[in-house]
């Protein structure tokens, strides 16, 4: 599938419109849900950390530090990706599956179009912008944590900012984006495979979307484990 996706390219004039449409559907269309989840989960992470480390022996900056580490290293790249496996992945599988069921893919093939390139390549290109979505999630998660902590009286502005700056390793950002990019490729390819090769009718589109979500999530978790072992240990 991957080999055919990068073979016999669709006319550029058509392809660029497809890429723009996929960016709109997959990236821009996900900004709202990512912002909402990141902001509030960031807040909850900070509050939970503050409550569980409420001890005079522990430094005040710990809340900011823990919030930053958990959001940058795990929450934004991994858990947002699992949520995206549900949103973006299901969208990809169901749209390709519906095209398969309604013979739209056959219609493209009869015209002599490389359907892999026409349908899947724009999704892969659109999802190369996925790291921007995750950086947006990181920023909003930390902002949510800061506002929840400071406005709720769990931590002072100075302590939280100290914690954010403490022992900052730029490699953690590199690590987060390396795995984000790998997750993006999984988000583009696994749901595409399940949608493109779907067989059956309307009910099977739903089944394919569920299967695609499960396998994308499993692949993300396994990749996360492998990348973490390779890069952080």
């Amino acid at each position, binding site marked *: 599938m991957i080999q055919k996706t990068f073979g016999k390219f*669709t*006319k550029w*004039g*058509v392809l660029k419109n497809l890429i723009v*449409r996929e960016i709109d559907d997959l990236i821009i269309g996900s900004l709202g849900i990512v912002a909402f989840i990141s902001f509030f989960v960031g807040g909850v992470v900070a509050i939970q950390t503050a409550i569980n480390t409420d001890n005079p022996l522990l430094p005040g900056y710990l809340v900011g530090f823990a919030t930053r580490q958990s959001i940058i290293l795990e929450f934004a790249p991994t858990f947002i990706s699992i949520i995206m496996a549900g949103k973006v992945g299901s969208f990809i599988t169901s749209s390709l599956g*519906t*095209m398969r069921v*309604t*013979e*739209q893919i*056959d*219609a493209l*093939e*009869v*015209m*002599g*179009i490389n359907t892999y390139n026409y349908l899947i390549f724009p999704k892969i290109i659109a999802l190369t912008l996925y790291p921007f979505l995750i950086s947006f999630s990181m920023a909003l998660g930390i902002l949510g944590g800061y506002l929840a902590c400071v406005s709720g009286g769990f931590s002072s502005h100075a302590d939280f900012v100290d914690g954010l700056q403490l022992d900052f390793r730029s490699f953690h950002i590199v690590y987060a984006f390396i795995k984000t990019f790998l997750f993006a490729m999984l988000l583009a390819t696994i749901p595409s495979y399940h949608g493109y090769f779907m067989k059956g009718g309307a009910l099977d589109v739903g089944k394919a979307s569920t299967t695609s979500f499960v396998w994308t999530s499993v692949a993300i978790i396994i990749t996360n484990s492998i990348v973490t072992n390779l890069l952080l240990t």
Partner: protein
Amino acid sequence: MIEIKNLVKSFDETQVLKGISTTFEKGKTNLIIGQSGSGKTVFLKSILGLFEADSGEIIFGNTSLKSMDLKERALLRQEIGMVFQGSALFDSMNVEENIMFPMRMFTTASEEEIRERANTVINRVNLVNANLKLPSEISGGMKKRVAIARAIIMNPKYLFCDEPNSGLDPRTAILIDNLIQEITREYEITTVINTHDMNSVMEIGEKIVFLENGFKEWEGTNQEIFKTDNESVTKFVYSSEMFKKIRKIYIDESI
């Protein structure tokens, strides 16, 4: 003209097409008929190259599909128009964009030229005030017209239709049948229609191929089908009382 020689196609252990040979003539509406499961759709999709045949030959014009390289096959596909059973219109495009799609993909024509050609075929299939509507906003009959317009916008040499009037009311079905026949004659296209609609058989069956259990059981014209004593054909075509009466009237009048 399309010539089929001894076409065989299997899925796993099941042989669906068991050596079919026939010829589809230019400028005529060629019909493939047969019961559900007789291999009609597999036959049509094998000719189109959507299924790779196990053996046999498919000859478009004078060139065998087997001897064509990928580039030649791609060019051949641009000479083929296809009307799918469910119309297969692209959901994300409006009627006009659906029709213009093949030209946008395969020609270097300007947007103005493409639009002009689209308007010609839109008028030809009698589509009125539907250009900017989405496929979900138009009726089944209009969808078929859009599918036909999209299939003929590139001036194809070959037109394939998979059950073009399924799901349509009898009046619209006849209009679609007549439209396909007119277009076939007007543009000198080799049209192959997969159907089990007996009205289509009687109305536009200039050449009929009857399939049964993966074999070609019978072939002839819509005049000959009245006279045939092939048991399988008569069982299938004259299964309803109405068609039995029509046949009787036809035979009585002939005598």
